[in-house]
């Protein structure tokens, strides 16, 4: 498998401009600025089939195409580096090891929509990453890849690094924009969409770190080569960050369509300590969990995960072995979402906490008959009825844990204790 995203990370000092350039860095930007119109660039990215790597998987070229060409307002590009999804740490690796790929991708994205101001919104906790990016932006600016008249092309673009203040919801693109505007990180009611009314009411594209970091390779090698990798609807490579009860946790770059079971057993070395696999969340904490017996034939791409009843999401693979109490795992995730709900709309504000309280009660041996159906009902009432996808992100795992491990939940309620975990 060819490395597209992780091609530079093992090189010594990969985060410096010198090493990045020595490895072919900023050639894509030169090519774009000297040879391609924004329209051709958008067509090329559309042809590559690249889909947003933040979780939703929306086609990147199409997203750019929604930005009105004739708007008199300034246009903005925002690199979403607010990676906060539990179990997800792929963007962090790119930020710390290959910041120039992100910067180059961001300038390419800005050029595509004729924007002259771009932002990187980085998660507040990524203090080291922010310092790496800041240094890289300074280097890029000093070398003429940012600022006025980039590479004598007449194209101007500034890149501004902005650190978040610690809220999961600021990774949601409109929550991010509210925060970047200086307000509370509240997602915006849609429509209108960011493509026409984004940052400060101006046309805006928000792209994930991994999406942007894919662009230089696609521009250099051509869409045809990218399309050749992957499946019919999932093109190219994808980063997966693997954590939990696994022998070799870490970030892996995988061709879309790679067999999931093989990935876990061979690439990641299988479940740690010789234990048996119980369940795995393939796309970050907000995605439905799969049981070990559901993995046969599942491949690592948008359509196969969807067919299996879950979603690719951010590619945060969380592995749970046979000693894991699924009640406790579900409560853990529910507690996270209750804590991170922004509180703006009623179903999420009230429902996330309600589910968390019931999970907690069950876990602590105070569950009652009917509790599970109540959680399913509450999650169903949140699902699809909120301002932003956070509601679904909280509702989906709650329902999935109960549906997939119902017997264990029932036993936990009946016996008023955990019957799985050692030492519980």
């Amino acid at each position, binding site marked *: 498998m060819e490395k597209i995203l992780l091609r530079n990370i093992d090189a010594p000092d990969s985060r410096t401009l010198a090493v990045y350039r020595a490895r072919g860095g900023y050639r894509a930007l030169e090519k774009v600025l000297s040879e391609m119109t924004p329209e051709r660039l958008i067509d090329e990215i559309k042809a590559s089939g690249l889909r947003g790597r933040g979780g939703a998987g929306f086609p990147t070229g199409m997203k750019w195409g929604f930005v009105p060409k004739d708007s008199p307002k300034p246009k903005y590009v925002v690199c979403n580096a607010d990676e906060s999804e539990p179990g997800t740490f792929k963007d962090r690796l790119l930020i710390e090891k290959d910041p120039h790929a992100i910067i180059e991708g961001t300038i390419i994205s800005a050029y595509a929509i004729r924007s002259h101001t771009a932002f990187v919104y980085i998660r507040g906790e990524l203090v080291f990453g922010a310092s790496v990016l800041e240094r890289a932006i300074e280097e890029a600016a000093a070398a003429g890849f940012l600022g006025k008249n980039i590479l004598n092309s007449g194209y101007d673009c500034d890149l501004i690094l902005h650190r978040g203040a610690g*809220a999961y919801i600021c990774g949601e693109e409109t929550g991010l924009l509210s925060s970047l505007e200086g307000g*509370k990180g509240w997602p915006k*009611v849609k*429509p209108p969409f960011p493509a026409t009314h984004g940052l400060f009411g101006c046309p805006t594209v928000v792209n994930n770190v991994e999406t942007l970091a894919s662009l230089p390779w696609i521009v250099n090698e051509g869409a045809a080569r990218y399309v050749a990798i992957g499946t019919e609807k999932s093109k190219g490579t994808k980063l997966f960050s693997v954590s939990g009860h696994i022998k070799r946790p870490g970030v892996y770059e995988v061709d879309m369509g790679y067999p999931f079971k093989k990935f876990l057993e061979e690439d990641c070395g299988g479940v740690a300590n010789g234990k048996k696999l119980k369940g795995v969340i393939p796309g970050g904490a907000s995605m439905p969990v799969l049981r070990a017996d559901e993995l046969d034939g599942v491949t690592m791409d948008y359509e196969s995960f969807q067919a299996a009843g879950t979603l690719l999401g951010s590619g945060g693979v969380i592995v749970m072995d046979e000693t894991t109490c699924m009640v406790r795992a579900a409560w853990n995730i529910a507690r996270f979402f*209750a*804590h*991170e*709900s*922004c*509180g*703006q*709309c*009623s*179903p999420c*504000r*009230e*429902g*996330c*906490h*309600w589910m968390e*309280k*019931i999970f907690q*009660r069950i876990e602590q041996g105070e569950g*009652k008959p009917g509790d599970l159906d*109540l959680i399913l*009902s509450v999650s169903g*009432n949140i699902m*699809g*009825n*909120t*301002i932003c996808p956070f509601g679904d992100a909280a509702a989906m795992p709650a329902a999935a844990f109960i549906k997939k491990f119902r017997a264990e939940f029932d036993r936990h309620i009946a016996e008023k204790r955990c019957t799985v975990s050692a030492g519980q």
Partner: protein
Amino acid sequence: MEPVKISIDGREIATEKGKTVIQAAADAGIAIPHYCYHPKLAIAGNCRMCLVEIEKMPKLQIACNTQAAEGMAVKTQSPKVLEARRAVMEFLLINHPLDCPICDQAGECSLQNYYMKHDLSASRFDERKEHERKREIFGPYVVFDGERCIKCTRCVRFLQEVTRTDELTVVNRGDHSTIALFPGQILDNPLSVNVVDICPVGALTDRDFRFKVRVWYLKKTPSICPGCSTGCNVSVESYQNRIARFKPRVNEEVNSHWLCDEGRYCFHSLTEGERLTAPMIRQEGGLAPTDWDTALQAVIAGLGAALPMAAVLSGRNTNEEAFVFARLIKKLSPRAALEVFYRERTLTEVEKVLKSPDRSPNFRGARDMGVGSENSFEPLMSDLIAGKFRGAYIVGEDLASLADLADLAGDGGKIQAALARLSFLVVQDTRLTPTAKLAHVVLPATHFGEKEGTYTNRRGRVQQLNAAIVPPAGALQDWEIFSRLLAAAGERSLFASPAEIFAALARDIPAYRGLGYENIGECGIQLEAGQP
């Protein structure tokens, strides 16, 4: 606007492109339940109560943020919609204290009303409720209960968009989200109590009104605020013949949905205090009660012998009263100085959203009726102080207590002294004011809340005043006093009601020609531009 047709619950509705589904439905008389939506505020979309089903859309959509498009088919009563509504009600109530028995909003609470209509199921919430701040004083008139709050942010948006004073915001996350004052702020802008009106629940209540009356006992009388000449439409809400509160009535031509704090509470100073219940006449040893016939005869005789005379009508008197007053004064002394009370003050930017610079709600109407003219009230006061009059007839204004008349370089003391020097002074008012105490004859009258008639606001809109409460026995309506005095002075035509007077003024006053008293309705009639 481009006309489009949509269907709501199978009913075809003609509306305009760009209108939201909730507006189009409201125009067609279909109520879609909502909390955060307010027609005069930006869309927040946070309560999720207005979720409706729209054909070809997989998810339910909020009606407040969905624009009507040709052929759109909306369902507001499908099983999916009804269940979503019930679910939103359930979410809003799980942490609500359910303290309706001690909540002032009970009876006019959207949580109560929608629960009865869209939920009616027992609580499934068996956990500990979250607690929040209680009884927090936000400002001089507004108190906050964080547990009743549903975070619809109407109050926050009102203060951002209408007053632009930004006192409130939402702090914290999740179910700890709550409305709070910005540090160092108090909610004391001149329109602050509107946040109580638009709060759909009992989170923001009116400190002046709360705990006084349960709202279902209130008698609601549509009327006009007497605070200034903007003429805000109000509902005068009374209990046991006392005014308990004003609430704004919607009139897009005048006050939209709003009412200023000063206007809202002006009824206290205008209606409270010991009332006059019999005419009084000056005798040795002071004012003594007398009967109406004696008092009215004394007025005719006294004023006739005290020329030149000044006559001052209150800016709160109606058009009908002004019309008869003008006729009376001209009968008594054709050369009398006749004025309506009018003074201006400087307004702040926020006050200008609603307020007019005066405190004379009907100064324009009174002038239309022939009582006074522009820039002539203060010169009349100067003449009074200069001793140019021997007699005066003052209606409804406590001139002796007037302080700092800016361009008179004097104070109330001078006016008081001038009034005391008059050889004959008639004062018609509701209470024994310092001015009334100087009078030779005092006539007990009524205030705005007890009378019917019309006011003409600053912009020339004729609006209807209605009697919310009944005056005390012994007092007479101002128009009736003037009418009886006219009779005592020898005029034959006696009016029997404000409606009859209006008919007469609609014949005599050119700008009002053709207006019908019964056509004024609850929103008033605009006089044609260009006419006085």
